[in-house]
């Protein structure tokens, strides 16, 4: 069947020399005991200098250990700054030679699972703004905040390196405003919103044309050819399920399991392994669509309900309220212009 190109939380598909090596390196500089850091991860010291690959689960455990063992609150932010360009080889080369931000986003989109296996990124545009809608791709659960901080910092610092200037990204986070807000302000800037219905990044469209510092199509294409040799599946399991449901809103568990060539029982077990129920993903897909149509496209209730195949408006309003905690009109107002 169609849905075979995905990685599960326990598939060993991520090169150890990337994130894991950065985490180890950082923790060493903070005086963390290496044995404590690797406890429960199933990662060994020698894995990091070999071609070994790790699973998302192993990395999530490593992040958890790193977070609790390092002093202060800056672990994720400083790690984020270290990720690019060092950890990504050919992809970094391709990104360094992009023409502009749009071009960079395109490379990011087609190599996303190699760069950031934990997050599912969807790009949207309205008239004025470009949006990146971000959801969990693999079941990060309590490490989601760690991952959000890590990759947002990596984005800001790599964009600054590639374009030579800081782009005013606006970040929306689903979690409440943390006490260590200074780290967010210094590393991500002041355009921050917390306790939002979903995680997203917004920027004005004019920035998409910002030129790269070292544009070269020839070097970029050469690097991209090298990227293609990596055998990383494109989608995380949760992301793949969400994608299937996004295409076929009418599908039940049985149909989706069929798409993944699994029995419903196996499929359920697999979802559970990633920390999800089927209904939860179903609701999330609805939530994403509602946010996209109401918040980003600023469509009316009637148009949105029609596009989302709701037959009556009250039912639609109830569902939106259940998914996002906000009524459709409140959701439309959450965008600050």
């Amino acid at each position, binding site marked *: 069947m169609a849905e075979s190109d995905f990685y599960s939380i326990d598939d060993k598909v991520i090169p150890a020399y990337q994130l894991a090596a950065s985490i180890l390196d950082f923790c060493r500089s903070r005086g963390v005991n290496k044995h404590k850091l690797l406890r429960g991860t199933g990662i060994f010291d020698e894995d990091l200098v070999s071609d070994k690959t790790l699973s998302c689960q192993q990395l999530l455990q490593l992040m958890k250990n790193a977070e609790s063992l390092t002093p202060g609150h800056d672990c994720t*932010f400083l790690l984020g700054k270290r990720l690019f360009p060092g950890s990504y080889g050919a992809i970094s080369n391709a990104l360094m030679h992009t023409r502009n931000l749009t071009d960079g986003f395109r490379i990011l989109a087609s190599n996303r699972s190699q760069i950031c296996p934990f997050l599912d990124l969807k790009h949207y545009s309205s008239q004025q703004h470009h949006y990146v809608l971000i959801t969990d791709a693999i079941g990060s659960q309590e490490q989601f905040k760690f991952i959000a901080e890590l990759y947002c910092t990596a984005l800001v610092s790599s964009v*600054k390196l590639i374009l030579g200037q800081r782009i005013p990204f606006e970040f929306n986070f689903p979690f409440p405003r943390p006490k260590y807000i*200074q780290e967010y302000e210094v590393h991500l800037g002041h355009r921050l919103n917390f306790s939002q219905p979903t995680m997203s990044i917004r920027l004005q469209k004019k920035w998409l044309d910002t030129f790269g510092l070292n544009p070269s199509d020839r070097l970029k294409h050469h690097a991209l050819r090298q990227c293609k040799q990596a055998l990383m599946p494109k989608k995380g399991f949760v992301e793949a399920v969400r994608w299937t449901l996004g295409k076929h809103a009418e599908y039940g568990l049985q149909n989706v399991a069929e798409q993944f060539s699994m029995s419903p029982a196996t499929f359920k077990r697999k979802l559970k392994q990633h920390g999800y129920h089927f209904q939860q993903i179903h609701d999330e897909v609805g939530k994403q669509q509602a946010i996209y149509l109401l918040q980003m496209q600023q469509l009316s209730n009637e148009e949105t309900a029609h596009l989302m195949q709701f037959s009556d408006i009250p039912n639609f309003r109830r569902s939106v309220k259940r998914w996002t905690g906000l009524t459709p009109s409140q959701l439309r107002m959450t965008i600050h212009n």
Partner: protein
Amino acid sequence: MNLSLLAHHQRLFSVTCASLALSLSLSIGLGEAKTIAEISWLDIIGEGSVALLSLLWIFFLLVSRPPGRVTSALVLGLSCFLFSANLDLVDEVMSYHNAASVLSMIESIPAALGMLIMSYALYQWHKEQLVLNKQLQKRESALREHHQVDFITALYSAEYMRTQIDSALNNNQPPEFSVVMLDIDDFDGFNRQFGHDQGDRLLRELSDLILMNLRATDLACRYAGDRFILLFPNTDLATAEKIAGQIKTAIANIAFKPSPSAESVYHQLSFAVETAISGDATENLLHRVSRRLEKFKQRTKQPIHQYTLSSSANGPNGLKHDGNSHG
């Protein structure tokens, strides 16, 4: 747990062991075992825990203090106390006849002696603490919270600065203090070129230098990343700006050496100053000053440049660009 200090305490370690061995061998050697029926288990638990806890205290002293007069006196006093506690404990399971009964008569004397030595030690400790407080003056205000100390620079963190600004806002009406935020220009570029370990070392050395340029009443904390925050009590905007300017000049002239050779890198600072106004809130003040710094940095947008290693004879490069900003 960091046990590295233990290696410096061989002598005190033997004192403790001697106290332990002597008390146990004396009391066990000279007595006769009681029958099970005679033993009061409640007393054993009570006195046993006194002995065990004093041993634990000695251990924590040894792993947390470098050798010196105060440490020796503290450990000696506790060892005497441990001696008595052990006699007391063994007393519960042993009975003594004739000559040996003297032992139970004098068993409290070492404890009294130990308490005397401890009292002396605590007085010395108090004096030592006053000296240490003075050493810490510019790193620390009226409050000590060791878990808020930053790992890299050993300055206090932003959290600590928040509580200090809070109390400064609450205690004086209208508030009369200024806050300065400092930021190293293109610290990311430095890290990329010379590595993060050198970046950490740079932060450490710059924090020492910032402290050196402060007055005795001022407080410096690490804010986040390459950003520092200073609190100047009873200081107006102009004075705060002047001191911040002096720090900037001092840092611009420091020839930081990232490699073993004499090649040096010079650093520029950007800073922003804010004065507290009446009815101010800590978050507002911090927000104002960091926004101002951000705006200033955007205005004087520094191109990403390669650090050029210059030999120290050439002097600092790029000193001319002026780095202060205010209202």
